[in-house]
C-alpha cells in the first residue's frame, strides 16, 4: 500500500509519467473489483453485468462536461455534482436490475444480469446525441472548485488512491457488520437464513445497490482518467474482466480484488509485450486458473504462509 502511495513520486523522479497513468487505472479497476467482490465474493451473487455501473458513472461525467463546454452550463462540469448524480443513477439502476434479477437463482441470475447489461449497452450505442457507438471525448475533467485540479494526473492519482483506501475500509467494516455476516450467511445457506427469519431478498438487494454505487463512483474516476467515454466501457467483456480480477485475486477476501486488478493489468502489460496476440496465452491461463486455482492469488499466498508455518 505504501508502495502504491509513492508511485507518482517515483514516476516523476525517473521521468516516466506513463506509470502514474497505468497505476491509476489499477486503482480505479481495484475499486470496481472491490464493489463486485462485495456481492460476488461475500454474497455469492455472480453478477455478469457489473460494468454497467462503470458505464453509468462514466457517462455522467461525459455528458456533464459535454454540456458544460458546449452550452456553457458551468454547474454541469462540477465534480461533486457528477459524483452525486452518478451515485443516484447507479443506485436506481442497481435497484431496478437487482429487484428483478435477485428473484432468480444460479445460472438464471448470471444470464439475466448479463442481458440487462447488454440492454444498457444498447441504450448507449443508440444514443446518437452523445456520440452513439463512437463515444464521447472529454475536453475537460470534472471540476472540484479550486481545491483539487484533476487535469494534473498526479492529483487524480491521489484522489483514486484515497477513495480506494476509503472503500477498502468501508468493505472491511461492512463485511464484519451484522449486515455483512447475514449476506455471507445467505451465501452458504439461504434456506437457513430465511428460516431464522431474515428477509434474505431485501438484504441482498441492499448489497447489490451498494456494490452498484461504488462501481458507479469508479466509473466517474475512470472517465476522468481516460478522457473518453464510449459504450465499450459497459460491454459485457468488461464485466467479464471484473469477474476475472475478483477470482484471480481471491474471492471473498478483503485485498483479493486489489491484488487481482493489479495482477490483471500487469499480465496484460507483460503478455502484450511478448506477442501482439497476447490473449492467446491469457485465455488458456484463465482455463487453468478455473481448473486448478483455488482461492486465486490470495489463496496461494495463504497456502504458502501455512506451509511456511508448518516448516518452522
Amino acid at each position, binding site marked *: 500500500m505504501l508502495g502504491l502511495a509513492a508511485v507518482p513520486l517515483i514516476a516523476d523522479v525517473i521521468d516516466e509519467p506513463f506509470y502514474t497513468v497505468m497505476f491509476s487505472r489499477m486503482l480505479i479497476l481495484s475499486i470496481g473489483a472491490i464493489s463486485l467482490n462485495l456481492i*460476488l465474493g461475500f454474497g455469492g451473487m*455472480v453478477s*455478469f453485468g457489473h460494468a454497467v455501473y462503470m458505464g453509468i458513472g462514466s457517462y455522467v461525467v461525459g455528458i456533464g462536461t459535454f454540456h458544460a463546454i458546449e452550452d456553457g452550463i458551468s454547474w454541469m462540469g462540477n465534480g461533486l455534482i457528477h459524483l452525486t448524480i452518478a451515485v443516484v443513477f447507479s443506485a436506481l439502476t442497481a435497484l431496478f436490475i437487482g429487484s*428483478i434479477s435477485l*428473484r*432468480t*437463482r*444460479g*445460472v*438464471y441470475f*448470471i*444470464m*439475466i444480469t*448479463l*442481458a*440487462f447489461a*447488454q*440492454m444498457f449497452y*444498447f*441504450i448507449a*450505442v*443508440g*444514443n*446518437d*446525441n452523445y456520440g452513439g457507438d463512437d463515444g464521447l471525448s472529454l475536453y475537460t475533467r470534472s471540476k472540484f472548485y479550486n481545491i483539487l485540479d484533476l487535469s494534473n494526473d498526479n492529483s487524480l492519482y491521489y484522489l483514486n488512491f484515497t477513495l480506494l483506501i476509503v472503500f477498502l475500509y468501508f468493505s472491511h467494516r461492512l463485511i464484519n457488520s451484522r449486515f455483512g455476516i447475514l449476506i455471507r450467511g445467505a451465501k452458504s445457506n439461504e434456506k437457513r437464513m430465511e428460516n431464522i427469519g431474515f428477509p434474505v431478498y431485501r438484504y441482498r438487494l441492499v448489497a447489490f445497490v451498494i456494490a452498484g454505487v461504488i462501481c458507479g463512483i469508479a466509473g466517474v474516476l475512470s472517465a476522468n482518467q481516460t478522457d473518453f467515454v464510449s459504450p465499450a466501457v459497459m460491454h*459485457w*467483456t468488461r464485466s*467479464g474482466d471484473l*469477474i*476475472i480480477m475478483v*477470482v484471480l485475486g481471491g*474471492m471473498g477476501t478483503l485485498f483479493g480484488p486489489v491484488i487481482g486488478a493489479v495482477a490483471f493489468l500487469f499480465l496484460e502489460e507483460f503478455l502484450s509485450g511478448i506477442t501482439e*496476440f*497476447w*490473449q*492467446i496465452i*491469457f*485465455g*488458456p*491461463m*484463465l*482455463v487453468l*486458473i*478455473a*481448473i486448478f486455482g483455488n482461492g486465486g492469488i490470495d489463496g496461494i499466498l495463504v497456502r504458502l504462509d501455512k506451509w511456511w508455518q508448518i516448516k518452522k
Partner: protein
Amino acid sequence: MNWILLLEQIMNGLQLGVLLFLLAAGLTLIFGIMDLINLAHGSLYMLGAYLAATFTNWTESFFVGLLLTLPACMVLGMLLEIIAIRNIYTRSHLDQVLATFGLILFFNEFVRLLWGPIGLDIQLPEILNGSVELIFGIRYPAFRLAIIAAGIIVAILLYLLVSHTKLGMLIRAGASNRQMISALGVNINLLYTIVFGLGAALAGLAGLMAAPIMTVEIGMGEEILILTLVVIVIGGVGSIRGAFLAALLVGFIDTVGRSFLPDILGFFVTNDVADTAAPAISSMLTYVLMALILAIRPQGLFPPKGV
C-alpha cells in the same frame, strides 16, 4: 401499413429464429445434461463461419464446403470437450464462466492469427443466389428461404433423435438424473463428448448459414451468444421445445420491432422523436421481454419436466 413489407419481415424473423434455435438447441442441451454454462458456444459459431468460408473457397463449391464444415466443427467440439471442458463440469458456475470466457479470448485471437483481422466473404452457388416467388408475386431471397427450410428440417431431426432413438433416450435420461444413468453402466464420458460434439456441429451449421448474410468477422459469435442466452433463459434452460418456441419469439420481436417500431411510435409521438428513439428501443426490446418473462416466471416459459 405495407403488407408486402410485413410478410417479408415475418420471413426475416423466422429466419433469425431458426438460426437462434440451432445455437440454442446445442447450448440448452449442454446446460441441461452437463450442467455447464458454455460461453464459448459463440466461438464455435464463429469457427463454423470461418471454416465454411475457407472450405468454400478451396473447393469452390458451397455444398462441399457444407459437407466438410459440419464434421470439422463436430470434431473440434469433441476435442475441446476432451481437452478443456471435461475438467470443469463439477466446478461452480463461476469457474465455468471464467474458463469458457478464457476460451472465447483464445479463439478470437486464434482466428485473428490464422485468418487475419479482416472479415471474409463467402460465395453463394447459383441456385441459392436468386430469389423465389412466394405468393401474390412477392419475391424472397432463395438463400434465406433455404435457411428457414434447413432450420426446420434440423429441428424435426433433432426431435426424432431426442425422442425416438437410443442415443436420445440416454440424453433425456442424462438430463433428468446423471448419477442414475452412470450407475446403470452408461459410459457417461462418451455421452458428454457426443452431446458436446453435436452442439458444436449445430453451432457450426448456424455459423455457416449466417456467413453469407452477415459478415464473417471476429466477435460475430459474441453478439449472437447473448441473444442465444436470452432465448434459452426465456424458453427454460434445458428444454429443447422451449428453446424452439423462444427462438422464434425472439427472432420475430427483434426483426419486426426493428422495422416497424418507428411507425408504431409515430402514432404516439412526433416523427422526429420516434426516429431517434426507435433504434435504441428496438435493440432493447428482446431484453425487456426477457425481464418481463423472468419477473413473472423465473424458471422460463417451458422449464423441462422433472428438474
